[in-house]
């Protein structure tokens, strides 16, 4: 009983206060809503990106299960299944691998799979079902295509394979098919359990002994109760089941590697801080103005015995009530906005172009709502303590900072109205600061976005991304999230077909092999010196191993390129004279110096022996110091590696590698479009392992990236601008309202309406002017710092001072600083001077 009534009266007071402050409420609700929109979109973008990465990683891993085992026997599987701490388990059984001559290029795994396991591995038929009768089969359209069969349920599918040493050749009936996921490596063909039991009965015994034939072995897939620390859960599961190292286990690194990196967290924190700050500025200002307007009321409550705690509750409760309306509205609109923002961001990243998903993770809403609520809570702190500090006796006399001083000053005489306006702005410095910062934030963000985007140098980008009209390479070298990189993806057939294209003017291949290079004495001493000089910059995991191998075995990692003439012409020679004829003899190599410095591993004229590891070994003379263009290499950087380039014929002769890593070519301008279409079709339909980059695809990528920053930055600045303008509107309205009597006094003593309006507009201009001074000075420094910290990883970025967006926003703000005070003035004029003078505080 004790507290119920007190709560009731506080609720009553808060509710009534809300009712009597309509304008303030509308503005606060909009402010809370805008803040929530910002939070929701930021969370939605971050989480959607993260989930899309996770999703595409899962597809690459081949399953969404938390982990799995390979090649188990029945008894091992049963131990696992009996474990109580796993949430779910399913499995498939290996039968064999497709051996039809037509399937040489298409890797097909023949298995029996439970429905759950098939679903978890993205291998459910989209047409038809999984096998039901003994001779049913379900497989991918790739397999059907390779076999030259139509995509029709009921057709006969001949499959050859070996199981337990016995060659089988059976004809199945197609019961279902689906399209192989681009990200997955293998094709699956599912047979019935009955058939599986017949040709590849489940392996019995404690563990698999013959490690060459896995037919009949079980691959279990496991879900733990949570994805938290799967590694540890897996270890514990193995311990519980008594498995030691004999089992072949794996965890799904989609769950472990998808943890966001520090850079993203930093960006996210920046965004959260920015939004919170801007939300704080306005909500704080609204409440501060509102409580100082109602200060007599609060003082009165204090006089009749309301404690500080109760007063704080009354203020906060109003905030919460407004949140009840503002936050849900913000969550809704923010989420709708994500439909625009998320695709814009994801389209640019290679990660998930095919499967971006707009996340519906509840964290978006919980996070968005919670942060908005937190912002309101923080914004109430100062108004609350203001209410508490004021004494009941003073509150009755309180007038918003009455320390107005109209100094006698010769300059002021000329422009009294403006001078008075300026003094009025100064009179409430906290309010002024909040409005100025609020207005400035959006302009700064807009300016930062535009400066950032303008700094993108298209020429720089294209030069470094592509040096020929086209290049074709294995898709794994373009898709940044590939786990297995293929360095010889362009086979002889591809090379031949491409080089015979009509309209090609220049063409050349780059071959590459990674191997460990045994340094000679000169090389060792140089490498050791480089190591000592730069070791502080290496990641520590890397350091130990490098040091051990260098000291003990004189070995460093190296890359060997074999290059055709067209690529040779693009070589970046740093030192020495390049002689093509000599180079083509195959007795010369070009060596890189240290990638982050000028130190050399080998000098010109040094003799370097390369051991190919296949019995071939040859001594070469260093002709020059240099490297192939970055874009024609594998496009990743190692800390310590040395790169050798040699003529392609020599490379092929020594390594036996026939497939090239990249093929680059220029074409006749008139044939460009035809060839681009041809290349696109070739990579999409003929050799699907390949991907390409063209001049236009680079330009589009570049434009896409620019657009993403413009859309995201633009929308965020627009919302921030709304908040700023709203703050300005609120301040203007309330400042006129609270000074009604004072302004009437001015009029009573002879200030004309025009002068008064002039004064109010001048106040608005003061806010605008001060905001611009702030933006042009501190704002520009902030922009510079922000842009620099974002762009330091972007080599295609050139900073240039840009104040055009600032200048462009001047008319907008001028408009508001004239229109809003005018409206306030007109509204005030509806009440006569006499009536306004009578208004008792």
């Amino acid at each position: 009983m004790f507290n119920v009534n007190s709560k009731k009266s506080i609720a009553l007071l808060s509710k009534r206060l809300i009712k009597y402050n309509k304008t303030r409420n509308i503005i606060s609700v909009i402010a809370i809503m805008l803040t929530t929109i910002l939070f929701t979109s930021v969370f939605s973008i971050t989480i959607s990106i993260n989930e899309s990465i996770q999703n595409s990683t899962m597809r690459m891993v081949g399953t969404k299960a938390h982990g799995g085992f390979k090649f188990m026997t029945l008894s091992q599987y049963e131990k696992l299944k009996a474990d109580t701490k796993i949430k779910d388990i399913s499995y498939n059984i290996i039968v064999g691998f497709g051996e039809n001559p037509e399937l040489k290029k298409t890797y097909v795994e023949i298995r029996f799979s439970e429905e759950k396991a098939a679903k978890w591995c993205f291998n459910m038929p989209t047409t038809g079902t999984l096998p039901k009768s003994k001779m049913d089969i379900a497989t991918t359209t790739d397999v059907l295509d390779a076999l030259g069969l139509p995509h029709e349920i009921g057709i006969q599918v001949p499959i050859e394979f070996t199981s337990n040493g016995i060659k089988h050749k059976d004809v199945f009936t197609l019961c279902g098919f689906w399209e192989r996921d681009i990200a997955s490596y293998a094709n699956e063909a599912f047979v019935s359990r009955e058939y599986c039991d017949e040709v590849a009965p489940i392996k019995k015994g404690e563990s698999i002994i013959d490690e060459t034939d896995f037919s009949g072995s079980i691959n279990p897939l496991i879900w733990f109760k949570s994805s938290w620390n799967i590694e540890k859960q897996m270890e514990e599961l193995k311990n519980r089941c008594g498995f030691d190292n004999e089992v072949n286990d794996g965890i799904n690194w989609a769950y472990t590697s998808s943890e966001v990196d520090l850079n993203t967290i930093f960006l996210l924190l920046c965004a959260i801080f920015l939004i919170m700050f801007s939300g704080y500025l306005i909500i704080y200002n609204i409440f501060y103005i509102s409580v100082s307007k109602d200060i007599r009321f609060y003082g009165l409550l204090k006089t009749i015995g309301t404690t500080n705690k109760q007063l704080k509750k009354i203020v906060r409760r109003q905030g919460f009530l407004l949140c009840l309306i503002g936050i849900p509205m913000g969550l809704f609109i923010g989420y709708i906005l994500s439909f625009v923002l998320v695709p814009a961001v994801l389209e640019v990243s290679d990660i998930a172009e095919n499967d971006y998903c707009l996340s519906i993770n509840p964290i978006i809403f919980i996070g968005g709502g919670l942060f908005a609520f937190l912002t309101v809570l923080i914004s109430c702190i100062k108004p609350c303590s203001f209410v508490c500090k004021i004494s009941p006796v003073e509150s009755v006399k309180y007038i918003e900072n009455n320390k107005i001083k109209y100094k006698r000053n010769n300059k002021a005489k000329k422009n009294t109205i403006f001078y008075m306006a300026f003094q009025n702005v100064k009179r409430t410095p906290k309010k002024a600061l909040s409005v100025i910062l609020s207005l400035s934030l959006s302009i700064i963000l807009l300016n930062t976005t535009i400066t950032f985007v303008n700094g993108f140098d298209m020429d720089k980008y294209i030069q470094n991304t592509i040096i020929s009209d086209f290049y074709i390479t294995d898709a794994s070298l373009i898709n940044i999230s590939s786990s297995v990189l293929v360095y010889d993806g362009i086979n002889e057939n591809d090379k031949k077909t491409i080089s015979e294209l009509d309209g090609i003017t220049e063409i050349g291949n780059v071959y590459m092999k990674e191997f460990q290079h045994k340094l000679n004495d000169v090389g060792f001493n140089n490498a050791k010196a480089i190591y000592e000089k730069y070791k502080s910059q290496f990641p520590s995991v890397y350091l130990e191993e490098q040091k051990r191998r260098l000291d003990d075995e004189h070995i460093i990692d190296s890359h060997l390129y074999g290059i055709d003439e067209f690529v040779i012409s693009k070589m970046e020679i740093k030192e020495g004279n390049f002689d093509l004829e000599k180079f083509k003899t195959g007795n010369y190599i070009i060596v890189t110096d240290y990638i982050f410095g000028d130190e050399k591993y080998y000098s010109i004229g040094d003799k370097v022996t390369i051991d190919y590891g296949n019995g071939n070994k040859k001594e070469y003379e260093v002709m020059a110091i240099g490297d192939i263009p970055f874009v024609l290499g594998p496009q990743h950087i190692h800390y310590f590696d040395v790169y050798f380039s040699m003529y392609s014929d020599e490379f092929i002769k020594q390594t036996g590698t026939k497939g090239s890593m990249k093929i680059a070519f220029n074409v006749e301008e008139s044939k460009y479009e035809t060839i681009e279409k041809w290349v696109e079709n070739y990579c999409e339909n003929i050799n699907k392992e390949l991907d390409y980059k063209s001049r236009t695809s680079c330009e589009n990528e570049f434009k896409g990236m620019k657009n993403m920053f413009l859309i995201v930055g633009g929308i965020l600045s627009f919302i921030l601008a709304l908040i700023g303008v709203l703050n300005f509107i609120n301040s203007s309205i309330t400042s006129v309202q609270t000074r009604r009597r004072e302004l009437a006094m001015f009029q009573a003593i002879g200030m004309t309406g025009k002068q008064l309006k002039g004064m109010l507009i001048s106040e608005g201009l003061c806010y605008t002017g001060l905001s611009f001074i702030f933006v042009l000075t501190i704002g520009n420094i902030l922009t510079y710092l922000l842009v620099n910290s974002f762009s330091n990883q972007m080599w295609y970025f050139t900073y240039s001072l840009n104040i055009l967006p600032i200048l462009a926003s001047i008319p907008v703000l001028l408009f508001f600083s004239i229109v809003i005070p005018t409206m306030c003035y007109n509204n005030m004029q509806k009440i006569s001077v006499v009536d306004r003078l009578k208004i008792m505080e």
Partner: protein
Amino acid sequence: MDVLKTENLKKYYGNNDTTVKALDGVNISVSDGEFVSIVGTSGSGKSTLLHMLGGLDRPTEGKVIVTDKDIFSLKEDALTIFRRRKIGFIFQNYNLIPILNVYENIVLPVELDGNSVDNKHIDKVINTLGLSKKINNFVSQLSGGQQQRVAIARALASKPAIILADEPTGNLDSKTSLDVLGLLKITSEKFKQTIVMITHNEEIAQMADRIIHIEDGRIVGEHNV
């Protein structure tokens, strides 16, 4: 028995050179059920004294003892709670809460204290003050005299030890003033309510049982009526 007592109460403003002695060693005592007027001219320190008595402002020196409790030994929030339980206020400008209706205004101090409303008492107060037809009206719909009657009702609602009235008729015309004072007098007797009223008006002061004169922050005399 003394409900209210001050001991050497002093309130100084300003620094050494320009000290203003608003109160300079005031000793008064008010016994239970008594109606006392404190009379003084403008600037005599009577308002300051009232603020001290009500715990709205802290003294430079001295004590205010209400029902045997030195109120300034209490911390801020405890003092606030003490105030709402033991002291009722009536102000010159009524100081009612504009966003609440008459009834809500009257019971607010009781409810803020977390107590359930003693409806019998409140009804009696409302009837005594002739407000029974107005309880659902908002403050702005009332005349000055009516508003002051609501203020008196509010002060009585929590059955305080003392009611402090600060020029309660200062904003009223003379007829209404007499009505309000009459009601104050009646309630004092009917509810055995201790009332301390400050006024600059000797005539009004005559309504009380006892008159205390204050001048330049000192008590210069007192007499029973």
